């Protein structure tokens, strides 16, 4: 146990350093917790400024003491390599740990420990935490909007059937694989539209008519995103090809179309579809609000998709065009069989980002008076019986949207890997 040099922790006194390091580190955390959650300052005898930083200083001393190279303990080496390479890094690590404790503890309290889960009225919420009763009571409204309770099975049935049709493409036999694009781009939208028209909207086959104004909640989010997604892709593709066309008329009309939609905010486009569009229709014709919104979002996102796809088209080497032409392929065969499959592969991340943006833009349809999930939240929080629970609502919606968007982006990363071919 001779020559213990505190400034240079070494392997000889490993245990000593480890014990003291851990002790100091825990002391720092302990001091912070006492300060923050119990309002007891054990280092109050020090001047205010130093006392404020004691957790950080203790933590840094602790991490300094355990910074031993090649200690032979696997966990310790990993720890040192990842969060504790030098004093600066140690300081950052301690700050982050303190920040995490600082934010996670109150959040945990709010989310779970102090929250209320049981009951069916506002009175059940007594704790200081979240009132999940509110979400429970309003759950049906958040999912189905103003859709009549007795008819909600129709929405569920439609979604299950559409999902079934979407999944069906996965089981296509190899012989039919070449019709897959056709299936997804033309067959599926038609089937879904018919389903939604007859099953959700109703009015025939003895089903009660439910006007689109009553649709809402998360199901409306899905309906709007689904149709916009399906339509914006082919339109965007045509625009991208049009922008690179040799025909001046096609080229400049696509160009101005794309630049126009990319230059204006979606909210004004929706305004336009709500206010201006009906003015241009002949008297007596009426296009449903929902359809107008879907068309507006589709055209808006199609312009963005077009730019993404154009990036992919530009990235392809000229040789691909020349080779395909030398085989005698015409414009359409060249693009459909050679260029687009390669270009689309390259821009999967970009397309996924556009699709994510589309899903995240759907709440904007509140400007035309359609209430999807976020709109329903805003309606619910003004209900006099349930005032003061806006936080719970927004957190709930945030989690739902996060799950949707995060899984979409993870899926796109998987697709990207799957289609990645080294060139």
């Amino acid at each position, binding site marked *: 146990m001779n020559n213990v040099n505190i400034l240079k922790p070494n392997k000889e006194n490993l245990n000593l350093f480890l014990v003291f390091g851990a002790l100091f580190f825990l002391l720092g955390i302990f001091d912070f917790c006492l300060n923050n959650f119990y309002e007891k300052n054990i280092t109050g005898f020090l001047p205010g400024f130093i006392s404020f930083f004691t957790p950080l200083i203790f933590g840094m001393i602790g991490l300094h003491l355990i910074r031993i190279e090649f200690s032979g303990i696997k966990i310790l080496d990993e720890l040192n390599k990842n969060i504790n390479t030098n004093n600066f890094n140690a300081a950052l690590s301690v700050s982050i740990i303190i920040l995490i404790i600082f934010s996670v503890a109150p959040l945990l309290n709010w989310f779970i420990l102090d929250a209320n889960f049981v009951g069916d009225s506002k009175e059940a919420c007594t704790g200081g935490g979240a009132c999940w009763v509110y979400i429970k009571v309003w759950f049906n409204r958040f999912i189905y909007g103003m859709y009549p309770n007795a008819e909600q099975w129709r929405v569920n049935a439609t979604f299950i059937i559409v999902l079934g049709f979407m999944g069906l493409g996965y089981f296509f036999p190899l012989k039919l694989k070449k019709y897959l694009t056709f299936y997804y781009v033309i067959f599926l939208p038609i089937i879904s539209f018919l389903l939604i028209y007859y099953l959700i909207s109703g009015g025939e086959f003895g089903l009660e008519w439910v006007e689109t104004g009553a649709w809402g909640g998360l199901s409306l989010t899905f309906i709007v995103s689904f149709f916009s997604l399906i339509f914006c892709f082919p339109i965007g593709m045509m625009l991208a090809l049009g922008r690179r066309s040799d025909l001046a008329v096609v080229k400049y009309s696509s160009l101005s179309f794309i630049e126009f939609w990319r230059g204006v905010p979606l*909210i004004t486009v929706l305004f336009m579809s709500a206010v201006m569009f009906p003015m*241009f229709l002949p*008297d007596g014709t009426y296009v449903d609000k929902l359809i107008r919104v879907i068309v507006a979002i589709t055209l808006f996102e199609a312009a963005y998709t077009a730019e993404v796809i154009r990036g992919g088209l530009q990235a392809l080497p000229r040789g691909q065009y020349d080779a395909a032409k030398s085989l005698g392929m015409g414009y359409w065969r060249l693009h459909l069989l050679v260029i687009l499959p390669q270009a689309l592969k390259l821009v999967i991340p970009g397309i996924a980002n556009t699709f994510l943006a589309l*899903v995240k833009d759907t709440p904007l349809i509140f400007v035309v008076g359609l209430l999807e999930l*976020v709109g329903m939240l805003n309606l619910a929080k003004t209900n006099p019986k349930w005032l003061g629970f806006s936080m719970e609502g927004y957190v709930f919606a945030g989690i739902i*949207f996060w799950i949707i968007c995060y899984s979409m982006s993870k899926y796109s990363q998987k697709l990207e890997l799957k289609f990645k071919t080294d060139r």
Partner: protein
Amino acid sequence: MVLNLDLVFLSKEASFDIQFSLIDYDGSMSYGRAYLVGLLNTLLVSFIGIILSTILGIIIGVARLSPNYLINKTASFYVEFFRNVPLLLQIFFWYFAALRALPMPEDAPLIFGSSYMTIKGLYTVAPVWNNFDIFFIALIIAMIVIFFFNKFAKKKQEEEGKQYPKFLISLGIFIIIPAITFVVGGVDLSWSFPELKQLAKTSFTYEGGMGIPPELIALTLALTLYTATFIAENVRAGIQGVGKGQKEAAASIGLTPSQVLKLVIMPQALRIIIPPTTNQYLNLTKNSSLAAAIAYPDLVLVFAGTAMMQTGRAIEIVGITMATYLTISLAISMFMNWYNKRIAIQEK
């Protein structure tokens, strides 16, 4: 159907009030003036948002490349969380949930000895200038001098290989020339602090200082936190996009680490970072139109909302609004294209 387009309404009296305005405005002024107020409010929130999100984005982007596991993971958690939640939801969250939990004006604690964060907004110190125009002219002169000095220094370096401490001298010029105006130009700066004032028995407010409405705070917060995630990803991609060989080559010819970063990595990384970041700036500007949802008086709310309801001139107003956004978008993208061209590789 006949469309009769008519812009005369722009000079008519607006007769509605706007809560927050950068220029003098009241209900007796024209619709044209209301349009200007809305436009300035939009530009204000976009400008603040662009600056803050760039700073935050760079910090987070660099943090995501940190070898420190904790920092790296915290930064990616932030990015993954904030970019996967709709912006409108975030705006609503900050405005209706988070900022509503703040104390009433009379209970608000003093922050940094000068500001109060209340449910009615942030009240903070405001500068009170005397002869601000002279100070402003001095600032412009300082910038011109710095511009010519840098040109001169670059020329000297190319001709004689002589290096000036450019940054320090520029900073000196930037401080000294405006400072002179305080001594000789009669420029004077004092601070006005907010003070609590009782309006009625239970109603309080702050007078003096600068009041920033909660709408602006919520909007800026949401826009910044949301856009910064995208900028962070761009920064990360840009720095990662510079080949490892570049760094090693630069080090092997004897450049110091800071020189490697400044002269080799950053110029190349910026080329990758700038084009997608321009798009984010454009997005931020367009997204600022979501302000209408929380009644921040921006262009869409003031002009495409209130003014349209009152005049009924839907086509003209939506047309003007869209044209304005198109102009802003094109202006930003032209500026960034110019900058991008300036730093692009000069290929032989």
